[in-house]
């Protein structure tokens, strides 16, 4: 039997997996998480991107969860680029990063 802690909300349900049986989740997001965790673990990524001609950083995130084992490679891409002002809310900054079908988008409007 394998035990997981669901990371999808602060409740942190303990989920137990026994062959095909999955128990202990309180909502469907937990079931979905447990299934993915066994085959292809996914994580949200947040980081920052340098703003051109400014001392400040622009916060960004992945538009969808990414495969966990690609996080480090995506971080390298994020640290390669910079972005010019003005920045719109949820502006796409890196489209389809590493062909993962996930965009890196801004999480703040900066003028």
């Amino acid at each position, binding site marked *: 039997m394998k035990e997981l802690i669901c990371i999808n909300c602060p409740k*942190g349900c303990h989920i137990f997996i026994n062959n095909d049986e999955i128990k202990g989740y309180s909502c469907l997001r937990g079931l979905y998480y447990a299934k993915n965790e066994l085959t292809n673990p996914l994580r949200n990524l947040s980081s920052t991107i340098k703003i051109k001609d400014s*001392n400040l950083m622009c916060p960004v995130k992945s538009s969808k969860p990414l495969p966990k084992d690609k996080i480090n490679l995506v971080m390298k891409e994020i640290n390669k680029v910079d972005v010019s002002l003005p920045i719109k809310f949820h502006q796409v900054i890196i489209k389809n990063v590493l062909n993962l079908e996930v965009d890196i988008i801004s999480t703040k409007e900066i003028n």
Partner: protein
Amino acid sequence: MENVSLVIIGGGSAGLASAISAYDNGVKDILVIERSHELGGILNQCIHSGFGLSLLKEELTGPEYAHHFINELKKRNIKYLLDSLVLEINKNLEVVYSNSFGVNKIKAKAIICALGCNERTFSQIFIPGDRPKGVYTAGLAQKYLNIDGYLVGKNVYILGSGDIGLIMARRMTLEGANVIGVSEIMPYSNGLNRNIVQCLNDFNIPLYLKTTVSKIVGNKVLEGIEISDVDDKQNIILNTNRFIKCDTLLLSVGLYPFNTLLNKAGCKKNSLTNGALIDNNFETTIEGIFTTGNGLHVHDLVDFVSEESFIVGKKAAELILNLRNDVISELNVNNKDNVSYVLPNTIKLTNNNEEVYFYLRVRKKINKGKIKILNNNKIIYSFIKMYLEPSEMIKFKIESNLLINLKEIDVEIEEIK
């Protein structure tokens, strides 16, 4: 002197929500004063996701959560000042602030303080050794990295397993630092389980429970630390010390309300929270001065800050618009067994039968607890709750008619074996 109905000090999540709610409850003449160059407060540096699930039913990053509330503020055309520091408030409800135009004074009908919290620093926890460069609070390191783009160190040790420390363990690892480990003095982590999984386990960062930093090594710059085991009473066990080489120590050892303005104005302080004493209207001991958010007591989740501040905005509006009913009875609230603090401290009842909200924290981990409100040892309200933890605030509300004509109530938690 300029007059404004409602002045809100602080434009973080508490200030934003109380402004929006006061407006929606009929007060249109509002001024929010914020010392930073932008609204949003601490949310601006919390770039990770984990905000909004309970209130907005969507998991957002800190800046996105702030964006939602800033938009709501702008939709209502509520006025705000940035880069403006409030220096003083007083019992006449005057607000003195300073910005690039100089020092200005305004008179309000009510003031809401939404000032946020401070991090406990080095001088507040006792660690022997020098105070070299390389020791930071976790929140300050977070600000340097996420706002200014500056990584404070390469080989990092973290003291305290609160969420900010855990979030920073992941964030610094992603930016190329080597996070050696996290020490927690208690036998359990104070952080959320989800953060242990996605911030430590995902990156194979060890968490050492029942250990603490017992020595700082290095005089001008940090060269390393010693960690030691502690016993069940959190005392260091001799000869368990081991040296760990690192250039950075992050402290994630707690937050406390930021409260100088209220203290200076003469609002009575709550020594248990470091915030102010309040009644069930969130009003301090000075009429017309309200307080909310992390400046009142430290919240676990921003959603709870917003929820609380919606109530506070409404309460301030009721005062300003003369909608308050006469007080028919008044009582004190005492915290008793297993309760580290409870709010409000006094309750003023009127005949409009409004519910009374309680906020409290348990002193230690309790598996099954009975939360009780007593008057002269007689239970007037109780309920059972599972898995009580100091890191999780307990909130509930009761009908005010249960309290009418009482002079005093005690709030306690009985541990059920």
